[in-house]
């Protein structure tokens, strides 16, 4: 176990947020069992008061989970010099393979937590709280996920021994490897580009159409496109975007981008992608809720905001990815 301040912050913060979530889930369970929207009894009033406590506990707990993903990446990046052979975050994650699982759970938690917070705010705007039951049921799923995140993080950090010789990203993301990530790196840039650019173009067309029309079908299509685009974009980062950003034809690592050496360019890149994806999912998810009369006006109002935020996020991502392709001297593909 390494007594590193960043690790202490992560473990302490995760523990705190899990405690908040457990407390909120307990209250949520009471509400699920005893809630009666039509009653005006004292008990119902007390429950209504508790919904405020729950959302405040959860905004804090889930807010932490959202930011902790960034802190986790930064910490894993910061401790890599402790491991012989590690040259970036990949080395630290390889030093104890549980790290990759933590990264996956953190990604899931990011989306789950952010969606919960957004839909909770939407629900609180209405008078009759129609999303009360689904939202507290979802909470009962998020809490175990946060607990899993805490235990995985603990086993990852306690299993890190600085004498382990890890492989650096050079061997993991090399084109001859056997792992899934190697498969992605081996995805030829031309194939990756042939997937990436059309799907991004479809995304833009659909988002612009959604901005002009209220059609629910368009929103469902956007929802699916955003999910597909998210995974293709991640593959594209490893396959060719990283090559352009590093200006090197064989360097596929998606974590080196987070280093000061590359001006921390990875942070705005991933923030754009994750933010753009998150807000791109919302119109599709909110479309079926339009039939609640108390929500539909709010959804109509928020829908445009979500679409715009998604558009800005994706554009930031795309601008960072395209900039070196268009303006840097490095050439990966030559015509003819």
């Amino acid at each position, binding site marked *: 176990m390494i*007594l*590193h301040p*960043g690790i*202490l912050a992560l473990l302490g913060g995760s523990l705190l947020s899990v405690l908040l979530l457990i407390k909120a889930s307990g209250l949520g369970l009471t509400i699920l069992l005893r809630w009666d929207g039509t009653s005006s009894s004292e008990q119902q009033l007390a429950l209504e008061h508790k919904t405020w*406590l729950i959302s405040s*506990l959860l905004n804090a707990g889930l807010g932490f989970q959202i930011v902790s993903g960034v802190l986790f990446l*930064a910490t894993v990046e910061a401790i890599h*010099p*402790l491991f012989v052979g590690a040259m970036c975050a990949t080395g630290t994650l390889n030093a104890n393979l549980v790290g990759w699982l933590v990264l996956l759970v953190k990604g899931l938690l990011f989306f789950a937590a952010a969606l919960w917070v957004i839909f909770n705010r939407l629900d609180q705007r209405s008078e009759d709280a129609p999303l009360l039951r689904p939202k507290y049921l979802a909470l009962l799923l998020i809490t175990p996920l946060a607990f899993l995140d805490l235990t995985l993080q603990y086993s990852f950090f306690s299993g890190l021994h600085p004498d382990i010789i890890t492989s650096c990203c050079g061997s993991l993301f090399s084109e001859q490897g056997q792992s899934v990530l190697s498969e992605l790196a081996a995805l030829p840039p031309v194939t990756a580009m042939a997937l990436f650019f059309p799907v991004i173009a479809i995304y833009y067309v659909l988002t612009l159409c959604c901005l002009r029309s209220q059609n629910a079908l368009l929103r469902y299509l956007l929802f699916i496109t955003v999910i597909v685009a998210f995974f293709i974009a991640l593959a594209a980062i490893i396959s060719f975007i990283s090559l352009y950003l590093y200006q090197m034809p064989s360097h596929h690592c998606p974590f080196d981008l987070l280093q000061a050496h590359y001006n921390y360019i990875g942070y705005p890149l991933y923030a754009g992608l994750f933010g753009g994806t998150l807000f791109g999912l919302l119109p599709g998810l909110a479309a079926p809720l339009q039939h609640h009369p108390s929500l539909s006006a709010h959804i109509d109002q928020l829908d445009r905001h979500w679409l715009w935020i998604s558009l800005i996020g994706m554009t930031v991502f795309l601008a960072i990815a395209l900039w070196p392709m268009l303006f840097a001297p490095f050439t990966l593909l030559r015509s003819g």
Partner: protein
Amino acid sequence: MNRQLKLLEYALAGLTRRKGKNVALLLVYAFTIAALGSVLFLTDALRSEARQTLDHAPEMVVQRISAGRHELIPRSYATTIAQLPGVRQATPRVWGYYYDALVRANFTLMGVTEPETQIKDLQGQLPAADNECAVGIGIADIFGATIGDSLVLVDAHGKNRVFAISGIFSAHSALLTHDLILMPEPALRAFFNLDPTVATDIAVSIANPREITTLAKKVRYHLPDTRPISRSEILHTYDSIFNWRSGMMFAVSVAALIAFCILAWDKATGISADEKREIGILKAVGWNTGDVMAIKFWEGLILSLSAFLIGTIAAWLHVFVLGAPALTPILKGWSVLFPPFSLQPVTDPYQILVLAFLTIAPYLACTLIPAWKTAVTAPEQAMRS
């Protein structure tokens, strides 16, 4: 957006109305952050100092071990090491420590083989003749000597030897040269009465950093009585030690953080009658629970961010302007570091992020429940109490 700005304005006005209570809380909070921040900044500065210093160190140093202790190494070992493929150069180094009873300090004496080598930050010249030496700024200061003055040292035979100071290292390189005396290698051998066939250790320069581990193994194979130490090993050790020490300091400071959280909880729970009445009136005129909680959230955030800003600036001043007088004895090491060096002000955004996480999150978390309790109070009950 506009609504949140109005709420923020109201929260600010509320904070200034209860100045006494909030300023006290702010100061304690800022002090806690400054204490934690000092540990983080100091460790980071020491770590980067160590890294910069070692940047110029040889890739590998080979020492001879005899009966488990460091022993003088035969110069012939350098020839064996230099013949290994991948080694650019293997230079035997002669150096040692000298205790000066007059000024009660230890000096490092080192031999120079090539007088024509250019050394940065040296005023004057490197020693050329056997009775010349170049000294670090610490030694020049302690004797009040300048270039051209004489330095008297007692050699291994107990005889006084007089050296003319040919050059003085400037304060820039103090960390490396503070207590250093350079003299020609033959003069140093005569001074310490060393055999010409041995050296203190061998500095090995290696062209490809990936070959260091393999070469270390080869050195051990061909010369089993040696201990090769690579530069990266020293760096890892420094990193681990600094992380461990700052982690320990942190773990101790967590007690202070918890104590602070209890204080914050207490302050947030024990609201005054005035404040209760204020909330009662707000709710009576139509504010809902969410609005009151939003105000409380803004109050907490304003307080946290102000304390964070004050605490971080205080920590920065403590470490980089005052030289961290409260922490250096613990973090630098148990042997008092001789050269008084000023730390390079480095601020890593990552350290700020960690500090923010460690201090803002617990405060916000422990004021949540009291804020809710205040916010859900019924208006007539609040006004009556």
